[in-house]
């Protein structure tokens, strides 16, 4: 069982991510109402939010240091923040500004941060080989860093999943594969896409340990990840962890969600992992309701400052589009 300090930090990281995305969500809809135009407003393009999945990011990244490599997906904010990415440069990138992580060239699905060794990809499962390569580099460089690859349950049926796990296992590399099972791949539920109930069981196909964390439990994630990351760091090779989590919102903002009923969505909201964790922390007298509210207030202040930084930053010069094709 993690210490109270750890529990409070897990909570703080979840709240930071949630508040950041709630605020991004508001900004995203600026200029998109009444008529939704995906190209309009301060934040254009698809926007994939991770509300409900914060336990996965917080529980895993609590064990990481900035030199550990993390690859995430098209839904990367919660992971990026939990791994310590500068919120201001993250926000600025989402707003397409010169001060963003990629000078506005990447956008919300293409966040690359050398400071925290973070990268992501909008192509399903294709961030996984990059993590394997990072782990390979660590072994060659004699670093005891690890690589963590986040991916969704929908990605577990993509060829890159299979090749990445086999190669990591074959070469005994320090990688931890973390499957965020939020049941849905856009509109396709897991049982309409995956031939077996749990991807954790697929670890046997590579001879590596597999762990299943149920009920979107941040403490369960923290413990499973601690074991897997510790093992990888000590040269024990790769592991696969699957976490049953929830996607509270649509696949992307503006998703009509015709594929799931209002009841289902309300059911998910009702079991919001953050609220449940707060109740548990209060019951166990780790964090009072007031203290939790303060955490949220502090997070909102941090987020507002980051969003303000993003808004007030300049756009890149249009002609800069031609730069950075080659080093």
């Amino acid at each position, binding site marked *: 069982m993690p210490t109270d300090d750890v529990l409070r930090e897990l909570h703080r990281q979840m709240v930071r991510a949630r508040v950041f995305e709630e605020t991004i969500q508001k900004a995203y809809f600026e200029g998109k109402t009444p008529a939704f135009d995906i190209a309009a407003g301060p934040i254009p393009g698809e926007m994939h939010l991770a509300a409900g999945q914060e336990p996965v990011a917080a529980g895993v990244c609590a064990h990481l240091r900035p030199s550990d490599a993390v690859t995430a997906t098209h839904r990367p904010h919660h992971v990026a923040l939990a791994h310590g990415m500068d919120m201001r440069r993250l926000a600025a990138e989402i707003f397409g500004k010169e001060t963003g992580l990629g000078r506005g060239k990447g956008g919300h699905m293409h966040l690359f941060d050398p400071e925290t060794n973070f990268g992501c990809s909008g192509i399903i499962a294709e961030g996984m080989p990059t993590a394997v390569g990072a782990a390979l580099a660590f072994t060659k460089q004699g670093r005891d860093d690890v690589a963590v690859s986040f991916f969704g349950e929908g990605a577990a049926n993509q060829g890159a999943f299979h090749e990445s796990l086999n190669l990591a296992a074959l070469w005994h590399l320090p990688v931890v594969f973390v499957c965020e099972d939020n049941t849905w791949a856009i509109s396709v539920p897991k049982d309409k896409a995956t031939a077996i109930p749990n991807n954790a069981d697929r670890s046997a196909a590579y001879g590596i340990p597999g762990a299943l964390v149920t009920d979107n439990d941040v403490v369960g994630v923290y413990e499973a990840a601690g074991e897997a990351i510790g093992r990888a760091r000590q040269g024990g090779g790769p592991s696969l962890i699957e976490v049953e989590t929830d996607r509270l919102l649509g696949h992307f903002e503006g998703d009509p969600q015709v*594929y799931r009923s209002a009841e289902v969505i309300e059911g998910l909201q009702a079991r919001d992992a953050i609220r449940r964790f707060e109740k548990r922390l209060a019951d166990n007298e780790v964090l009072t309701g007031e203290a939790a509210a303060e955490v949220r207030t502090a997070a909102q202040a941090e987020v507002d400052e980051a969003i303000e930084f993003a808004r007030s930053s300049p756009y890149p010069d249009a002609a800069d589009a031609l730069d950075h094709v080659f080093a």
Partner: protein
Amino acid sequence: MAQITETKRLLTTAKAISEAIAQEMEHDPNVFVMGEDIGAYGGIFGATEGLLDRFGPERIMDTPISETAFIGAAVGAALQGMRPIAELMFVDFFGVCMDQIYNHMAKIHYESGGNLAVPVVLTTAIGGGYGDGAQHSQTLYGTFAHLPGMKVVVPSTPYDAKGLMTSAIRDDNPVLYMFHKGIMGLGWMTPNPRATDHVPEEPYTIPIGKADIKRPGTDVTIVTLSLMVHRALDAADALARDGIEAEVLDLRGLVPLDREAIVESVRRTGRLLVVDEDYRSFGMSGEVITTAIEGAFDYLDAPPARLAYPDVPIPYSRPLEQFCLPNPDTIATAARQIVGR
């Protein structure tokens, strides 16, 4: 040009496409659809909307995120006499399944000496301009047109989209059907007035490989396709106000390429501007210009020119992306330069 029948029946391009699919599925039990989110969701860009309710999950099949498996399965099913339609959600994802598309779907007919047919329609969404970044905004029609064995259809209007989809489904060859997000008439994309237009209800075909003069003109030929047809038509209106009559030739696809139409138009106007939303080099713009050189060299009053997407990955930030995309102003300017006034 598109024949307009008396009664006006307005459809978006997305509805025109799903109507064509539905009509073919009605009379041909071998036609079925596979893809991600093509069922309950109706396709991310609406190309299969309403089909699940109408034909059920046996014929409108949502798939796992396994493009190699389900696109390869389309090839395998076609070899057994079915006529599958498979959707690759964004063309940008081709790299996860290109072997099935190109080493199998495109080559088996030839390798079999013509003994086997592979009647698959591979639909995919192309195009950007709405801030979706480097992995979700490309057109890439040049990439596919370079590789032999598949027809490549790229419509620009609802009317063409329906007729070309009907032709694609009935074609015994693999057909890559690329629809631009900006021509689908989606409620959540920047409105394009020409993305809703008259579409006859009865099934009809438009021959694959025939270009269409979307606007006749005498001073310069603007060759393009897909969303850029609309940009070129807007530019042509502006040019007309200055007394420059631009002809807008919509290729409607790249394989087979309607070289006759290109040459015929350039011989008439003596001037050629190619407008290309795909990457500038080693693609469509160079091929069209070379086609004009091969067929109309002695008729040219000025060197042919091109306005294309620069050779850079698609940037996310709006000013950067808009800087890269051809638009009516840059098209009109390029045309004026060629015409010399």
